[in-house]
């Protein structure tokens, strides 16, 4: 694919460690926005954004409703809200019913972003003990985007990546450090 217009990442148990291996590969000038859904216990909103900000060069913020997506920035879904991407490439939040017992849900982010960015999107599904994200990643592939699944053998909990692999064949299956390299290389393309 050519240089991506946006990246979406989802994960659950163990995903924070995986992100710590992925995100440092991306420079502050990364040419696309990145949106992230991580299943965490609701309660402490800004901690995740702060934590990730310390571990990468990207600008990190908790997504606000109607906030336009900008390159070089990582948008983290706030706890207890779904994060969606509108076609005008702004963030949208919702308090609709949890999906796969999760709010935010990875499927909700992935499916909305797939409609907004189509072939310009890269979806990354990480470790986790829930099937959230598998369907959304499949949708990204169906709309022409690239799909990346964390190699289950490197996952703290392989259920989430395995659920995706059962549904379809992704563009690539990689260990976290290699996902970082892969995304960085895509970003360097013309």
């Amino acid at each position, binding site marked *: 694919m050519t240089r991506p217009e946006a990246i979406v990442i989802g994960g659950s148990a163990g995903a924070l460690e995986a992100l710590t291996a992925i995100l440092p590969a991306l420079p502050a000038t990364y040419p696309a926005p990145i949106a992230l859904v991580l299943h965490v216990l609701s309660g402490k909103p800004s901690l995740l954004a702060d934590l990730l900000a310390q571990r990468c060069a990207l600008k990190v913020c908790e997504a606000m*409703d109607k906030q336009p997506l900008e390159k070089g920035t990582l948008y983290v879904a706030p706890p207890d809200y779904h994060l969606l991407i509108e076609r005008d490439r702004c963030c949208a939040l919702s*308090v609709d019913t949890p999906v796969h017992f999760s709010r935010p849900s990875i499927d909700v982010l992935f499916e*909305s972003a797939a*409609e907004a960015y*189509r072939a310009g999107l890269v979806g990354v599904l990480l470790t986790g003990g829930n099937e959230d994200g598998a369907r959304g990643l499949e949708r990204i592939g169906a709309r022409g985007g690239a799909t990346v699944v964390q190699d289950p053998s490197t996952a703290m909990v392989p259920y989430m990546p395995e659920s995706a692999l059962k549904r379809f064949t992704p563009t690539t299956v990689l260990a976290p450090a290699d996902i970082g390299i892969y995304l960085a290389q895509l970003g360097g393309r013309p």
Partner: protein
Amino acid sequence: MSEPTPEDVELNVLLDAIYQRYHYDFRKYSEASLRRRVATALLHFRVASISRLQEKVLHEPRAFTELLGFLTVQVSDMFRDPTYFKSLREQVLPYLRTYPTFKVWVAGCSTGEEAWSMAILLAEEGLLDRSLIYATDINPEALRTAEEGVYALERFALFSANYQASGGKRSLSSWYHASSRAGLLDRSLKKHILFSDHSLATDSVFAEVELASCRNVLIYFDKDLQNRAVGLLRDSLRRKGFLGLGSKESLRFTAHSATFADFVPQDRIYQRL
């Protein structure tokens, strides 16, 4: 922007049909959530396309009532975002206390959790007897649930934790009667809550209020409709009245930010200038 897909066209036609037939206006709702909700409704109605759904709801009012449940499914909890209620208690109510009587508007009350929370808050501060709470929504089914004030018992563990964190003065259990499966909120609260049908999208100002609480409603609107709704809230507020939004909402991206001042910024409480 790319060419509209057949589904985009179908969705627009559905929303137009709903507006013309039933006068509910979802045409300026934010699209991503709306598309998701309609996709869920397709599964429920077991129809293959939005066109089929449109045909059904156009000819069957009961199907429309059912669809309305899918189009307005936001879920709240009592004392959701406890610090919001704590700030109302500690910073807003001291102002409202100076009025002989005052009115509170819970706009987009859905199934009523916030309206009942507001009533408890006012009762504990000794203000319920001189206040009236308007709780409005567009979904008659949700309003009926709201008016009943009955919620599944397992939800009360979270409600109680929120209540305590919000600075509640008693135990939440003193405000509801528990049966084996459900909690029924205290009837004495209900005399001060008026549940009624009102749309931020199509209706106008119906009362002057001192506090308007409209949380996690604006996130479902596009920018134009947000501007309309915030304008309506502003016009309903008396000068120096208060507006509370959801914890991830902001007036910053609306046309009306200059007519409000931050009052408790971290809890999204604004004061009308």
